[in-house]
């Protein structure tokens, strides 16, 4: 038997131990006979029992890993439901990446159409928020735009300054207050169903730690624009259309101060470099 056939047969057996023998068998015969012909059994453990050890290790390792990555989803569903979910999910989306970190990449999408979403209509969004926390934790490093850097840019150049969100920033939109629920679970407190109220959650990383908070509509709209890459002027315009005229300048100032403090935005390189160079006194720019 070729290595490829052997490995594919074992893969099917390990990842789907509940499948019928007929569905696991092939042209060589039913699965038990193929298995006996491949794997040595003895008085202590039959061939099937030996393969079952691998099936158990596969499932429980991934169950444990996903439970650690999705503690709130686990808390809401309960252990039995979560285990059933993971079992179904792994059949539909078996891990493909070398790192186990990506094993649950599609869990939130899988929950969208899952019967659990009828009983817990917020569950897919909650899983999406937990996934975002994990992704932000491991997202690329990059220099965030800080107050000192921004001060080096002449104020007349600010409108044209191109901004975008830091790679370690995600915004999760939901019709439920899922951040409140995640926070409750993380604090080890008893949770209740979240309020059915539209909410967008900013997830960001600072000093290697992941934070999240609900966004007000003005900030959400502005950050969505920034996430696609936008000039400072366009961002101000977005905030202005959402806010009363007398509050606009204050609000823009508050949001910028908050983003700079949290490290959630960065300037696109070429613009900042050009602006920074232009901002330097001519003597320093010449390298004297």
């Amino acid at each position, binding site marked *: 038997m070729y290595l490829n056939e*052997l490995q594919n047969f074992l*893969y099917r057996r390990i990842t789907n131990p509940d499948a019928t023998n007929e569905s696991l068998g092939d042209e060589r015969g039913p699965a038990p006979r193929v298995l006996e012909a*491949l794997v*040595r059994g003895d008085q*202590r453990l039959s061939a099937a029992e030996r393969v079952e*050890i691998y099936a158990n290790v596969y499932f429980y390792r991934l169950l444990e890993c996903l439970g650690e990555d999705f503690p709130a989803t686990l808390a809401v569903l309960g252990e039995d439901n979560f285990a059933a979910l993971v079992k179904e999910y792994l059949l539909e989306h078996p891990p*493909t990446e070398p790192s186990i970190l990506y094993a649950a990449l599609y869990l939130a999408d899988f929950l969208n159409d899952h019967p659990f979403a009828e009983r817990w209509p917020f569950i897919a969004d909650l899983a999406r928020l937990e996934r975002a926390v994990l992704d932000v934790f*491991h997202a690329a*490093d990059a220099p965030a735009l800080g107050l000192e850097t921004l001060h080096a840019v002449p104020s007349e150049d600010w409108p044209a300054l191109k901004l975008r969100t830091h790679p*370690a920033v995600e915004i999760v939109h939901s019709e439920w207050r899922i951040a409140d629920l995640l926070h409750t679970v993380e604090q080890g407190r008893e949770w209740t169903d979240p309020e059915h109220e539209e909410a967008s959650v900013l997830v960001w990383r600072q000093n290697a730690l992941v934070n999240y908070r609900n966004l007000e509509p003005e900030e959400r709209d502005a950050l969505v624009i920034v996430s696609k890459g936008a000039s400072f002027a366009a961002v101000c315009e977005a905030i202005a259309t959402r806010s009363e005229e007398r509050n606009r300048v204050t609000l823009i100032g508050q949001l910028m101060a908050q983003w700079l403090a949290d490290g959630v935005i960065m300037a696109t390189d070429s613009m900042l470099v050009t602006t920074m160079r232009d901002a330097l006194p001519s003597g320093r720019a010449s390298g004297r």
Partner: protein
Amino acid sequence: MNRSDFASLGFGVGLRRPHYGHVLEQHPPMDWFEVISENFMVEGGRALEVLAGARAHYPVVMHGVSLSIGSSDPLNRAYLETLRAATRRFEPAWVSDHLCWTGVGGRNLHDLLPLPYTEETVIHVAGRIRQVQEILERTILIENVSSYMAFRSSRLEEWEFLTAVAEEADCGILLDINNIFVSAFNHRFDPLRYIDAVPADRVMQFHLAGHSDHGSYLLDTHDHPIRAEVWALYEHAVRRFGRVPTLIEWDDNIPDFELLAAAAAEARRRCDLALDSERSDAAR
């Protein structure tokens, strides 16, 4: 393979999440650390900070779990490129992975599965190790795994297979003493015979770990203290292979760092005793 590429690192432990803060802030005495490569093959964030911080104070070895060197799939080039980038950045003392397959058809079982021990598999695996060594531009170590099944098609003993692959690929061997003990129980072979048959000039590192006893089989869980029988095997291995860099693995129910460090100190003590007794015997 050049032995001088492998430093005499001494006695280390696996660097695991519960100890990140302690290691980075306190810099406790420890000869070296081993990290799971895949946990640090990420784009950024805490993991890379931790590895850079640890690397600044200690020698580090990168130990992979997803190379899948025995798979019938093509080698995962993207994975190898990422691994190479990580080795260039963190300059580990060496890189290791397992003599096994971890997936097929582009899917990953996240487990270490045994291979049929045949000449064909030797050629297949050794060729792939050579490719990996070319890509990484370094000699790697391959580790024997714990296993719970064996194939009727096998024509070689496990130690013969490990030896043949290492010789054919011209790579080093990471000899996991606990895995030998676990597999010896599960497949009823003599663990001493295994240790005595592996070529001494290729063994560059030992692993020591705990396992769990399920009655009819032993499971390599890395969640218990090292058993007395495994310590005894280790002493036998030291007498045969000498002072080989030794690493304590503990991946579940992870104890306080002090307990882990005590296990590394115990390995050092037993290594010294075994070598002393060896010298005494030789002097008689």
